[in-house]
Every structure is written in C-alpha cells, then in structure tokens.
C-alpha cells in the first residue's frame, strides 16, 4: 500500500489545484496578522469594554497566542471548504478525467484503492493543518510575542497562564485535524457518487455551511439537533482553552467525529465496490 500511497501523493502534489488551499490559508493568516499588527490593540480594547468597566487590565493582551486564537476561530470555518476542494475531487476527479477506469483495471482491490485514496487525502489534510499551525502559531509568536491568553466568551472570561497555553494549542490543532478529516471523509463519500468534482465539493460545502448555521444559531427549535451535527462537535477544539479542560466533553466530541469518519469511509468503500464504473 505504501507504493500506491506514494503514487496518490505524487498526483495530489503535482496538481496545481492542491496549492490553492495552501495559498488561501497563507493569505488569510497574513491578512489577519497584518490587521492585528496595525490595529489589534484598538480592536481588543473595544472587545474588552465591558470588562474594563470593573477591572484594570495590565500586561500584554495582544500576544501571539491571542492572534493565533482569533485566526483559528475564523479559519476553522473556511478550512473545511478548502479541504472539500481536494477531498471532493478524490474519486469524482478521476472519473471526470477518465483515469478512473484505468485505475480500477489495475490489479488492486477496490477497497485497497479506496483506502489509499482516503489515506492520501488525510495526509493532505494533516499537511494543511501543520502549515496552518506553523503560520498561525509560530509566526504570530515571533511577531507578537507571548503573554497570558484572555478568551472572551458571551458570559465568561477565561484567562490562561502563559506557561499553560502551548500544550493546549498542540491539542487543539490535533483536534482540529480530526475535525477536518471528518469533512474530508464526507467529501470523499460524496465523491464516490459523482463523475464531476464540482458536485461533491459544492455538496460538502453546502452541508458544512448549513450545519454550521444550525450550530451557531441559538434557536430552541434547532438546539435539539445540535448534538447530532458534526459541525457542532468540530468546534470543541475550544474545549482545550477552558480551565479546567472538560476532558469528558472534548473526548465525547472526538468520539463523535471519529465515528462520523468511520461511517463515511465505510459507506464510501461499500458503495464504490458495488458501483459500475461507466466513466
């Protein structure tokens, strides 16, 4: 399988489209860092107005950790779309190019073929996350330095000690990787049914956007649905920035996401084995 995996990775990283996601992430991160570099203090002061009515806050609020946190908040809404761009193309793209029929006539089982494709997609996702982690955390720390991290929630402020933050980011990025692999596995599943990658990419984006809207809206009618929406659990990387960390909730979400991955991939393999390749 390693040989097949090398071939798949070769194909992914030789394709210009792959680098769109990396470029988009770099651009977004750079813009956010630039914005905070020039106007970050003013933005944070505005955000902390409510708190400053009662408290005097001294020290460096605008730190690399703060900037990274804000980047993660915005990016983890956009990154799923970039993941879908490659994952949705996995099988449908081959069908569209006409190469699928050549690949399936090779002496490898469909299961092995699908596993290899999925593993390559997972590696791509992880590389994208690592790239994001380096740019958002390492570069932010280099530019803005470190300090305690103030996290403003709707009814709570969490202050994390400087020395107690870095491990949380590693855990959060690890969790985010699982969340993004969930999106990738959904796009992978939808890719099996299409012969053009636009379909699964748009379908994945639509599902993620719709579920995200349902997740973030605080409407009683939708609240009953939330525990079942994978997008709700995707946000639980923030659980690592609680004090203390509610490991039960975080691992519950992790379990739900891993469950989604298993189901999506299993269905993708089952349907691909039964599917007649007509492209």
């Amino acid at each position: 399988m390693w040989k097949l995996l090398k071939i798949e990775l070769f194909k992914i990283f030789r394709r210009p489209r792959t680098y769109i996601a990396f470029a988009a992430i770099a651009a977004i991160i750079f813009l956010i860092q630039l914005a905070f570099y020039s106007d970050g203090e003013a933005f944070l002061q505005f955000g902390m107005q409510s708190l400053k009515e009662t408290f005097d806050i001294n020290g460096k609020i605008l730190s690399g950790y703060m900037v990274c946190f804000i980047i993660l908040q915005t990016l983890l809404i956009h990154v799923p779309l970039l993941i879908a761009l490659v994952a949705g193309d996995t099988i449908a793209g081959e069908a569209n190019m006409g190469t699928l029929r050549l690949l399936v006539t090779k002496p490898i089982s469909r299961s092995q073929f699908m596993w290899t494709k999925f593993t390559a997609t997972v590696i791509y996702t992880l590389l994208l996350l690592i790239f994001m982690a380096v740019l958002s955390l390492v570069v932010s720390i280099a530019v803005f330095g470190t300090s305690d991290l103030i996290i403003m929630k709707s009814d709570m402020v969490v202050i994390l000690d400087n020395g107690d933050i870095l491990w949380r980011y590693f855990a959060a990025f690890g969790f985010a990787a699982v969340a993004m692999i969930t999106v990738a596995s959904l796009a992978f599943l939808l890719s099996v049914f299409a012969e053009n990658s636009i379909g699964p990419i748009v379908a994945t984006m639509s599902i993620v956007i719709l579920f995200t809207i349902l997740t973030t809206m605080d409407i009683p009618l939708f609240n009953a649905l939330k525990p079942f929406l994978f997008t709700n659990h995707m946000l639980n990387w923030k659980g690592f920035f609680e004090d203390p960390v509610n490991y039960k909730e975080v691992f519950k979400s992790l379990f739900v996401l891993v469950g989604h991955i298993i189901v999506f991939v299993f269905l993708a393999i089952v349907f691909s084995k039964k599917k007649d390749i007509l492209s």
Partner: protein
Amino acid sequence: MKTIQFFITILTFQFISSICFAQGETELVNKVKAKLDKVNDYKAEGIMNIDVPFIKAAPSGVTIFYKKPLQFRVKKDGGISILPKGGVNVNLSSILAMGKYTVVPAGESVIGGGKVKVVKLLPEEENSSVVLATLYIDEVSLVIKKSIVTTRENGTYEMEMSYGKYNNWGLPDKVVFIFNLKDYKLPKGVTFEYESGEKKQSKTTSENKRGKVEIIYKSYLINKGIPDSVFKE
C-alpha cells in the same frame, strides 16, 4: 427642670467623652500611619487569586510595587494582571495619605478572634476620591485588619488583611479585596460560541454580584528603591 438638667448633663458628658475618645482614635490612626510611613517603597512577590463569577483564571504569580505616597502597581511577568478598578490602587497607605480627615470612633469589633477598634475616616477635602473609609485597627500590633472604603467613582470595596512576619512594617501577608461587580455580557455571534454540553454559569444574582481578588504576599523587598518608570503604563 430636673429632667432637663439630667439630659443636659448626659449630653455634655457624651460630648466630652466623644472628644476624649476621638482624640484616642486619632492618636491610634496616627500611630498606624507612622508605622506605615516607615515603608518608603517595597517590591513584593505574591500569588494572586481571582474569584469573580464570570472570570476563570488560575492563581498566578505577581509582583507588587509600592512607592510612597500613592504609587502602586501589580504586574505579572509575561502575562496579564486583572484587578478591580480603582480600589486596589487605593491601598492602606494611600487611604491614610489622603490628606486631612476627621476621625470618628465607631466602637469595637472582633476579627479573626482578636479585638479591633473600628474607626471611620471622613475626608475633609470635598473632591477627595474617597467618600468614607472604615478601618478595623488592631490596637496592640497597630495594623489595619480590615477596611471598608466607599469611593466616589468605583463604589464600595472591602480589604481584609492578615499579618505575619512583616507585621513590624505593617505589611500584610495576605490581602483580600472584595468589590462590586457589573454584569458581563458579549453577543454570542462575536465570540463564536458552541454548545459544549456544560451547564450554563448561573447569572450573577444579587447575592453574587461581588467579586474577590486575593493577593498572598510571599516576600517583600522593603526600602530598596524603585524607579518611577515601573509605575508608568
């Protein structure tokens, strides 16, 4: 006639005794002030605990700087210190350095098993930021065990002090600031929140609209000199 005379006698006696007693309290306050005046400046290492319903923060190491008469700063190295507005800066010495004030005896009380004299200070200056300060003074060790300060702009706060090895300097081992809170709320859309399954924090009720900040002083460097730049923003 006899009744009128009796009442006049009682009132006169009370007036005279209050003056005598006030003179006693004033002297007590002056003695405490003199003790505190021995400290020109200090740099202290401590641990700060924040106990506020809507703030979650772990205890953190802080450095406290003081320079006579009114310069006071709490800094956290490589981090953020969050302190109740106005109140903390008005520490014991600054209360007593607020200029002329009238000392009004207010009886006695018991704090931590020890008897304390209760003294109210009324600033004579009309524009003083402090409206009223109530001090609970230990006569024996000449230290302030508790103070309740009402300020013009930042409401009322309490300070409770515990003393130990720096008793001779009038510097506490532990100070607890208790202060009023305003409601804290941010729109959810701004904060990108999610349903974590945790029970929501109970909203601040009238019972818990007060917050506490505790500083445990581990060590003091007293009268070693502190540059003014430390107190600048």
